[in-house]
């Protein structure tokens, strides 16, 4: 298994990039079937490697697995260090899965103005950046992967987006860049604060456990990396890029943005900010908790006011990520488990919702709830049912994946690993109010879109129901939502050991 262990992660991460080059160089043709086929083949191969890794993975240990450590830039002691543990494995798999499904979806649907080769090449490049971020164990490498997603996403929104795409694209780029460059300064400061100087995440974690950085330095560095991660999550009040980017992005772009890009921020907190800067994390935790709770309530209220279906789902992401951040802020094993689970569930559910909205828009040519006019269950029963099902999962119905992330997060706020117990219990109450509001806007949306009678104008329109390609892309997600809802242990057991090791720095 030696060769396999060494190569699995690297192959899965870089196969899509290789595919991107092939697709970009392929001969242009009318439909670009070859390019679309290659996109499916390369993302599929990456996913196959990812699935094979699931079987080779040792679930009973907190150790990093499939590790590779080689020299990369000796001039700054930055290495090519990758590997997966129970925390990164689910996110890594999620990014491979969603990319593959997006490739399948793109077999039929390439948004205006076409140019499938460019679109698919960027999508595959994006996959390399996303998957790489979750396996990088060196801060410099992490940063390079982290930033690699910006350019493809900028073009995706800017070229293939809807109405206000140029504004949304540049806003997305500038916001996230501004956050992440401060994060980079934080990383460099970590390097110099450590003795011996290192960018290796595992080495820095070990250092934090035995002899952590001075508190002042931790607070300063935390501020830098917090900006990077918080913009990406996005936490309130850094979220303003999100509604624009998600709304204007093409379907596949929104799916990947909501499904994976946001998780990079949450993952950054779990992997880097908390374990390497434990004292700062403890100091900042209440504030993060407060911001997270504001996000939950604010997003729910904002959703109630939306008229555009896609924008509504975009805002709901802010709320769901609020639950994730609340879980992280408790610094407890349950909280972080809740955060991880919440991220996976949100990736499946919101990814699915954006797929559906894309399909609805393709058929109805509008995303305005009022113009859709209800009665979708009568016209396109499968599509409407799938939409309602996913929306209810998003609401957090027990038995579906959305439930566990939220409930565990609220549960962890009852018994946080930080001192401000009273504060967190208050936050729990507000979070609970948030869930009620969430149920309100979701049910109201389903009522307005799927139920009711068909408007006169739509009576005689012929609208196709879910196509075969769409079923192919969606069934795995729908199945995932049900399975994770019934057996949450699939994620929590995988991550348990690693999270236990991670939070040990907080119980001193």
């Amino acid at each position: 298994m030696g060769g396999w262990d060494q190569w699995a992660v690297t192959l899965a991460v870089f196969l899509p990039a290789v595919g991107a080059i092939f697709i970009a160089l392929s001969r242009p043709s009318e439909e670009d079937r070859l390019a679309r086929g290659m996109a499916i083949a390369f993302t599929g191969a990456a996913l196959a490697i990812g699935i094979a890794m699931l079987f080779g993975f040792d679930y009973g240990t907190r150790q990093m697995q499939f590790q590779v450590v080689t020299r990369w830039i000796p001039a700054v002691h930055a290495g090519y260090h990758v590997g997966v543990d129970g925390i990164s494995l689910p996110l890594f798999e999620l990014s491979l899965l969603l990319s593959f499904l997006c490739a399948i979806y793109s077999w039929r649907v390439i948004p205006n103005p076409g140019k499938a080769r460019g679109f698919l090449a960027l999508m595959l490049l994006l996959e390399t950046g996303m998957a790489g971020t979750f396996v990088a164990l060196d801060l410099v490498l992490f940063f390079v992967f982290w930033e690699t997603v910006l350019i493809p996403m900028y073009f995706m929104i800017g070229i293939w987006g809807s109405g206000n795409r140029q504004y949304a694209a540049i806003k997305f780029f500038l916001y996230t860049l501004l956050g992440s460059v401060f994060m980079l300064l934080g990383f460099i400061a970590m390097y110099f604060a450590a003795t011996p100087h290192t960018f290796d995440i595992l080495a820095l974690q070990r250092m934090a456990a035995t002899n952590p950085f001075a508190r002042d330095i931790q607070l300063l560095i935390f501020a830098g990396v917090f900006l990077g991660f918080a913009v990406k999550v996005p936490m309130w009040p850094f979220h303003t890029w999100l509604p624009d980017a998600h709304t204007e992005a093409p379907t596949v772009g929104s799916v990947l943005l909501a499904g994976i890009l946001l998780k990079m921020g949450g993952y950054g907190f779990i992997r880097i900010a908390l374990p390497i800067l434990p004292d700062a994390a403890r100091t900042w935790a209440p504030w993060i908790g407060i911001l997270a709770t504001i996000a939950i309530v604010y997003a729910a209220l904002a959703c109630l006011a939306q008229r555009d279906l896609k924008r509504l789902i975009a805002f709901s992401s802010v709320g769901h990520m609020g639950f994730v951040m609340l879980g992280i802020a408790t610094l407890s094993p349950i909280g972080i488990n809740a955060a991880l689970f919440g991220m996976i569930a949100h990736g499946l559910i919101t990814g699915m919702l954006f797929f559906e909205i894309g399909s609805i828009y393709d058929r109805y040519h509008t995303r305005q709830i009022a113009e859709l006019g209800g009665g979708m269950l009568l016209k396109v029963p499968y599509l409407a049912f799938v939409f309602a099902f996913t929306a209810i999962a998003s609401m957090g119905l027990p038995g579906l994946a959305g439930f566990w992330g939220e409930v565990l997060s609220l549960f962890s706020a009852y018994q946080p690993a930080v001192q401000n117990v009273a504060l967190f219990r208050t936050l729990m109450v507000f979070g609970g109010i948030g869930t009620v509001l969430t149920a309100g806007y979701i049910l109201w949306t389903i009522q307005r879109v799927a139920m009711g009678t068909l408007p006169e104008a739509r009576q005689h329109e012929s609208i196709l129901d879910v196509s075969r390609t769409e079923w192919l892309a969606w069934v795995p997600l729908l199945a995932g939502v049900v399975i994770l809802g019934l057996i949450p242990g699939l994620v929590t057991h995988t991550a348990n050991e690693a999270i236990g090791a991670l939070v040990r720095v907080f119980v001193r």
Partner: protein
Amino acid sequence: MSVPFDLHAVLPEIILAATLLVVLFVDLFLPVERKWWAMPISFAGAVAAFIASLTLIGSHRSLFGGSYVVDNYAVLFKVLFEITAMVVLLLCFRFLREGHYYQGEFYFLLLCSFLGCMTMASARDLLMLFISLELVSAPGFVLAGMRKGDPRSNEAALKFFLISVLSTAIMLYGMSLIYGLTGTTRLSGIAVKLAGPVGSTNLALAAILFVVAGFAFKVSAFPFQFWAPDTYEGAPVPVAAFLSVASKAAGFVGLLQLMFHAFLPAAHFWAPIFAILSLFTMFMGNLVALQQRQVVRMMAYSSIAQAGYMLLPFALAGYSLSVDKAAFSSVVLYIMIYAVTNLGAFAVIVGMSRDAPTLLIGDFAGLGQRAPAIAIAMATCLVSLAGIPPTAGFWGKFFIFTAAIDRGGVGGWLAAAMVINSVISLVYYLGIVRSMWLEPIAEPVRPIRIPAGAALVAGIATVGVLVIGIYPQLFAHFPPLTAVLGR
């Protein structure tokens, strides 16, 4: 030394000098339709000088009593300048033939300037620095004014000339004061003297300031920057490429030796001045670049901002030996990466100038469909100038950040300022990218043919930018070889 005069050490310079004389001479006898022969001759000379420089790698030769040194630092930059010369020559070729220029004189002047760049890399003496600096600048005045019929070109030359003369006068005054105070023009000798009581006299500090002013002009740093936009815009586009890469790099090559070698003992005095220079230069360059509609003007302001980044490490000097080394190396690396990237971008601009002589940002509209490969090259170079991974430009910035944070204190704040600046710069770099891809264009799409030389340069630069971006060690191992710092 056993040999009375080490000819091998100055072989590249001799080759280049011989070439430029041949060019001037041959030009006299060429009929008008064959004047372009000057270019292949010049190119051959640059290649020969390049090969000659490669034979000097790893040597340490000292001529004229130490005022002219050929070490790794010198060879690294000579190679850089020779490659730049080849690139600029390639870009000039078609441009000059189609533009009815005096080709023989043009290539002669261009090679003169490059000769100055090369001697600058070896100069370790105030006089040598001064001569090199003038040798770089003086032909530049004429080059900038080469488009005689165009009043903007005249303005370009005149502004360039006047400001250059002013700053040179100030610099020369400073140099003479330093000679008066220390009794030597040798950089190493000056360093020794300045470490003593002389170094803390007000006169010495004023003299240093005067010398810095001369170089600040050369690298287009605030407040000596305002010739750059007018000169770049008015000059023939390949000359703008030359000014923004070779001429600027030459300024930094000299400045590095001067500050990190001769004036290092007084670093506590001048480092804060550089901090201010750097801040003003980068903010001014970036904020004004936001307003530009003409691409060459925008690139001029961009190159001012880039100079601001390169000045930052100077502000870190004098703290500790390791920080000095890191700062010195980061400037060297930044110059190399900047040269590759900027030449790539200018190659595209030169290529575009035939189709759209006005070179407005709007002229780039639809380039993504008219010439996708060229548009990708341009986008890659622009993203690299902004410093986004995985392009080379990111590593240039990364090493400056590293040095700044290692310095601590003010370094951290300077790094934060630079970070904000790179985000600002992204706005105008992406402005061109947006024009190339995001703006709708009129159907039918007119394909555009880019001259082969420009396309070749753009292609090589783009591949370079990406390869260095993914494997920065390729370039990053050079600067430490050069950071001798004279200790």
